[in-house]
């Protein structure tokens, strides 16, 4: 999902603990919005509505935990 929204196939193998913001993945507003939209479509979890600070986007691992707790 991350590889698709960023258009960077090399992110397919990114470790779950890599920070999504800043160096490393460098998730920006555009890719972040697309990622949240995909998450909502696939899992029915509206992360933006439930997480004011979007801290769940810190890493793929925190995002997965956030989603799993709401499934």
């Amino acid at each position, binding site marked *: 999902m991350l590889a698709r929204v960023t258009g960077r196939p090399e992110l397919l193998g990114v470790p779950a603990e890599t920070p999504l913001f800043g160096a490393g993945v*460098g998730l920006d*507003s555009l890719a972040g919005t697309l990622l949240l939209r995909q998450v909502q479509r696939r899992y029915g979890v509206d992360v933006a*509505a439930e997480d004011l600070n979007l801290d769940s*986007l810190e890493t793929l691992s925190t995002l997965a935990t956030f989603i799993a707790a709401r499934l």
Partner: protein
Amino acid sequence: MIKCVVWDIDNTLLTGVYLESGADLPGADPGLTGVLRELSARGILSAIASRNPPAAADYVQQVTGADFAAVECGWGSKADAIARIAAELSLAPDVIAFVDDDMLERAEVAAAQPDVLVLTPEEAAEAPAWPEFSPAVITAEARRRSQLYAERRRRQAAANEFGGSRDDFLRHAGTQLTIAPAVPDDLPRLHELSVRTHQLNSAGEPVTQPDLARLLASPADAVITVRLADDFGDDGLVGAAIMTGNGGSSGPDVHVPARALVATVPLIMMSCRALGRGALDALLAWLCRSAAADGAAELRVPCLVTERNVPMRLALAAAGLRAEAGSVAPDGRAVFTRPLTGELPQLPDWVTVK
């Protein structure tokens, strides 16, 4: 107010059917060609949704001389094509109009996209006289909008082919971002941005030109503009921020502890054309660094929390700003803050500060 008109080709923009005309292709409808030109001059975009091969859109572009911001040629549903155009241009359905001579196509779009304004070609010919097609102020950026979107299509195609990271592409494309204090000539465009931006707007309400002029004249406030250009085109003034210090206090009275200077940013706004091009991240990095250089200990950004401005919240989070959990006020606002100590966000080397 309509921001984009999605046009059918056969028997609408052309005076016949593209695929049924053999070598003798139909010409452009003269009335609607005039409408295309008039809408473009008012900053209203045009796009194509057609059951034709992509070559038909190139042909229409050639015979009408119009710039199309998005093109959907294919045999799928037109309601889906409009949804893709809306997503590509970051527009809500209620600012889109759809023009088609075919009653069934109009009915399908009206049913699937009730917020889209659905028109016959005859109605579209009259539309320039209607209020929803008549913006009150038309800025230089607005007059060039169709051209800017056509440049954006070429930039997007190049980005899709480019292998590296976003930063590598921004460098490769010769991206130049200029941060400078606003001048009086910027006021109409700043007002327009405050009205038109939603996804990347922290305040969620328009700022009038007199209010902007007052802020510009006030020594306690700073109005900061962002201009963006690259090898594909010059987008001009794409964003701005207002920053206000509290003046701090370090009075002579030793019994009153010094109050830390807090820099408050009541408005950050950025055109969606700048989405994905690092402009908002760079502006936030500059705000942090500039406030810190002025001696502020904290940056505060009050932000309306809505479904539409999630991209703004993402940028705030990426720049290290956080709001207290559950602190959204009854008016829908939360205050995002960050201390201005430790490591501040980096300004990329393609940013020029004036």
